[in-house]
């Protein structure tokens, strides 16, 4: 079981530790996409860590939307620690999705990735559905 070598893993004790700023800083550093892999909802050892993480991911998506960066570059996935094959599948799926989006505009400086008004807001809820595409 191999997952793409471009995926760099940053361990945290629980996704509840993932702050919005961690995701923003990662993007600032020039990565093309960031996803948070948390336990399944309802299975959090700390009860609500993954729920909080999901909300923070949503918050970061909104910020990206507002500054003109595709919010799809950030995502939240839920899987159990025992699901190795699913982990690989997610890593491949997210890599493919980001590869399709192309390099981050932070590196290229090519300007807005998404249209100006709220129309692009429809793209926001896609990560869940995008799983099925893999």
């Amino acid at each position, binding site marked *: 079981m191999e997952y793409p070598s471009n995926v760099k893993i940053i361990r945290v004790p629980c996704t509840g530790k993932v*702050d*919005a*700023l961690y995701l*923003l*800083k990662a*993007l*600032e550093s020039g990565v093309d996409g960031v996803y948070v892999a948390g336990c399944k909802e309802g299975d959090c050892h700390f009860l609500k860590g993954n729920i909080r993480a999901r909300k923070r991911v949503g918050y970061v998506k909104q*910020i*990206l939307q*507002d*500054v*003109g*960066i595709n919010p799809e570059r950030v995502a939240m996935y839920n899987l159990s620690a025992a699901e190795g094959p699913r982990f690989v599948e997610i890593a491949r799926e997210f890599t493919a999705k980001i590869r399709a989006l192309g390099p*981050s*505009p*932070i590196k*290229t*400086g*090519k*300007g*807005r*990735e998404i249209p100006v008004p709220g129309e692009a807001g429809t793209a926001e809820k896609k990560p869940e559905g995008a799983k099925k595409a893999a």
Partner: protein
Amino acid sequence: MIIGHRKPLEEILKMLEPHDKIILAGCKGCVAVCNAGGEKEVGILASAIRLARKKDGKDIEVKEITLERQCDPEYIDQLQSLAGDYQAVLSIACGVGVQYLAERYKSIPALPGLNTDFMGGSREQGVWVERCQGCGNCVLHLTGGICPITRCSKSLLNGPCGGSSKGKCEINPEVECGWQLIIDRLKSLGLLEALYEQILPYKDWLTSRDGGPRTITREDMRE
């Protein structure tokens, strides 16, 4: 505390357009408690500003700093060594902080990153509600500890009005009728007759905003 919320990023970015070297100043007072302008929010907003600029191939230097308070000159002074090196200061304190910065540092613009909303408290994590309008002449002892100026949409002193229905206000079914709350509370305190039956006289609004900007002076504390 004073409750505020961040202005839309689009508006902030527009304000910053002419600048590429700014101070982003947070406040550890009220706005930090309501998660709008503390150290964490400074970090997030600074990052968002840099991302917005970098994606256009431009750069911006954001000096992140969070002052103890922005409503006291002694803390505002802490920016003294920095102000000369930057083109503008974006404050995510309440409107008081922005104005204190503007008064103290005359050579650079002070820009507001927050919309300051009201004096209130938290109802639950992530929800803040208004409780005081700073009218300068408190009547809470007469109204069961519920403020008619704030909680009644019309700020009536003798309510409720005809717009009160089933304990809700006519402006919005989710808004409780302030006067219904007052009556219920006075009833439970056994003070309905003693207090509610008395007509409250008209209020002297000169102690509120109607008297112009207000100043409180404590001679015993002045230097």
